[in-house]
């Protein structure tokens, strides 16, 4: 009796470790291999990989912030509206001759301010994140349209537009465009923050069991406020990248993107019950979705096929997660 349960526990651990850390990465390997075999000449090219990274940058950057929120047991349904609002703010600032750096900062600040507002509503009025952000989902989109006068806001061309453009011949030494480097750098930064700071561990504790965190002296309200503010500052950064990609401020952009962002976190091992998730998993999750979309295009499959495949991948990821958590009664 005494040795056998321990044996069983070790086995389960091995499984869960494998699925949590290697699972998403293995999934990415599988889809790359699949499309590589099916379309070796068009899919497996350096240019195509650069394009895929470009396409991933916006979702992945926003998903970094969403990872913090989801680990803490929250959710933000309004992140797409937030990104749209940020592109509008940046375009308006540039139009008024603000320097590009300041305009970008303004965009990030807009995201953070929305995060602060959402965090405030959740902590002070004790509303559930789902309801609050269902509200801001509409409200922020409306605000974006209002600021933009219900049309696209064109802006003068600046270096911001180069963040997410394929590299010209003179800039090959950079390997990736700056926006992609930004995404990679932020991933490591957020990963380190989650693992090596008290704030990071508190995020996990709140998501795992808020009562325990309170008992242990974690300042719940302040920490949550910070989580949403920082988390949605990433939506602001994603807004900068989205602007760079669009080159205009578009109040209707990124509609539905919130679902892709949440899906990236979930495919990467995040649990909507909180307490679990990893930024590396999240970025891999975002990549999986891009690769599938890109591969389907290369195979000349219609849009609707891509959408079905992406949906199935999300469900498969959750099923795997379920299996990982299945306990022996």
């Amino acid at each position, binding site marked *: *009796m005494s040795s*056998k*349960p*321990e*044996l*069983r*526990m*070790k086995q*389960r*651990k091995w499984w869960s470790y494998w699925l949590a850390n290697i699972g998403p990465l293995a999934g990415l390997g599988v889809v790359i291999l699949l499309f590589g075999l099916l379309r070796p000449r068009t899919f497996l090219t350096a240019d195509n990989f650069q394009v895929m990274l470009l396409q991933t940058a916006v979702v992945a950057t926003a998903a970094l912030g969403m990872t913090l929120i989801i680990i803490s047991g929250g959710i933000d349904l309004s992140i797409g509206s937030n990104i749209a609002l940020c592109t509008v703010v940046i375009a308006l600032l540039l139009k008024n001759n603000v320097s590009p750096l300041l305009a970008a900062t303004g965009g990030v600040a807009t995201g953070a301010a929305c995060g602060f507002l959402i965090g405030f509503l959740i902590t002070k009025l004790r509303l559930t994140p789902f309801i609050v952000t269902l509200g801001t989902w509409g409200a922020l989109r409306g605000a974006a349209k209002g600021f933009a006068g219900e049309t696209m806001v064109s802006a003068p061309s600046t270096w911001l537009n180069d963040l997410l453009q394929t590299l010209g011949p003179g800039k090959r030494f950079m390997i990736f465009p700056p926006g992609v480097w930004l995404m990679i750098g932020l991933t490591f930064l957020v990963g380190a923050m989650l*693992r*090596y*700071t*008290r704030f*990071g*561990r*508190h995020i*996990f*504790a709140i998501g*795992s*069991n808020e*009562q*325990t*965190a*309170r*008992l*242990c*002296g*974690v*300042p*719940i309200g302040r920490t949550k406020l910070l989580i949403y503010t920082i988390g949605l500052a990433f939506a602001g950064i994603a807004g900068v990248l989205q602007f760079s990609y669009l080159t205009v401020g578009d109040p209707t952009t990124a509609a539905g993107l919130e679902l892709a962002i949440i899906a990236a976190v979930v495919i990467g091992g995040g649990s909507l019950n909180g*307490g*679990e998730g990893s930024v590396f998993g999240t970025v891999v999750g975002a990549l999986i979705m891009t690769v599938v979309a890109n591969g389907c295009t290369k195979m000349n499959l219609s849009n609707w096929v891509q959408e079905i495949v992406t949906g199935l991948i999300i469900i498969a990821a959750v099923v795997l997660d379920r299996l990982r958590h299945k*306990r*022996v009664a």
Partner: protein
Amino acid sequence: MEKRSLLRMQGVRKRFGATLALDGVDLRVAEGSVLALIGENGAGKSTLMKILSGAYLPDEGKMWLGDEEYVPRNPLEARQMGVGMIYQELSLAPHLSVAENIVLGLEPCIGPFVDRRRMKRQAVEAMSDLGRPSIQPHTLVQELSIAEQQLVEIARAISAGCRVLIFDEPTSSLGRKDIELLFKVILKLKDKGIAIVYISHFLEEARALATEYVVLRDGRSVSAGRMDDITNPEIIESMVGRKVESLYPRTNRTPGEALLELENVSGWIKPCDASLTLHRGEVVGIAGIVGAGRTELLRAIFGLDAVKKGKIRIQGQLRTERAEGLEWNRGVGMVSEDRKGEGLALNLSLADNITLSSLKRFVSPSQLQERSGKWVEQFSIKCNDSSDEVNSLSGGNQQKIAISRLLEHDVDVLLLDEPTRGIDVAAKAEIYRLIDELAHRGKAILVVSSYLPELFGICDGIAVMGKSGLGPVRRTEETSEKQVMQEATASLSL
């Protein structure tokens, strides 16, 4: 006269993968009698329950109900054959009415429609059979107290015409008064000729109800007989499988200066008027009935709940402000009574749980592992290593982790709320030893418990929380369980 045995099990075995959950269980229970099924957590009680209820099929062995072989294929079939279960976690639908819950799964029907009149009549009959006709059939179950909900659950079993009724730790969430009422109901059912299997950790309860007993250990029935022929220490011995030196060890304790002083502390609702002094190297217990405000007192001391009036001095310093988590810095730590809901973050690792309150701004995961590994070793917590999820551990080991957190924070005053709830006897003994050791090392410990033998075993002094406030701390030698019970319930009848 020998009563006819109604339910019999012989040589029942069940294997899950590599683990042998049941390894030869024999038991028999006669109609109109109560059999106590005693065993530690993990002894196989829940597997046995699931086999009886038809959730699992046994690999080997036979079961008989009356003269017929009993092979239920699913829980509904078991219920129809007359075997009912009262689970520890109640299995009622809170949004449905009492009557709907009672007939759930066996609704009386006219064609496709539920016969609501018959349903209501069944419910009224069942509730008055149990001596509680005041529970109306149309009331929603979520509006009832836990004790009343349990009665609905019992009513469900008897209205399905059950002949064998199995109770799994039915008193774990009841107060003393409700326990007495429950016991009356059980004895009434027994007199009606129903065969009852009563599963419990508490030997006192088993003694109060049962005439026969079976002790289960490592999936085997290791001893059986008449309750009158065996003493409690003998039962504990066969549960644990070895001689238990002393359940309540007591080393030399030298009380020092006062670490915690309460002066007429009242909360907004509870507690009312508590005064107490707790010294270094002292263990003081707080007895009282469930709902008297004992947990609320600990929460108020720990700063989780607001204090309306009164003074709290910690290490001689008067507390002037309250904030969640502030007391940690003053050397006070608390272990919650609700281990799953509040005490521990179950899907985080041991290391995370132990160090959660004492994290520095920047943390190093390897250092966290090291720091918590120290406690794992010292308290012989059974796990692979400190990166295990708390989920994977037994209740006793989880409780040790909750206490380790306070020690990792190096607090002087430990507030322990029901520290041995839901853990088995062997683990209880270890917690008692730990508490004694901490007192010996000069910690001050305040223990809330509803289990009197435990308070008398480990405490230097006991105070009783009643309706009118906290009574004086009496030396353990100078009071008795009877006196404590009187004080706890006396103030109620006022």
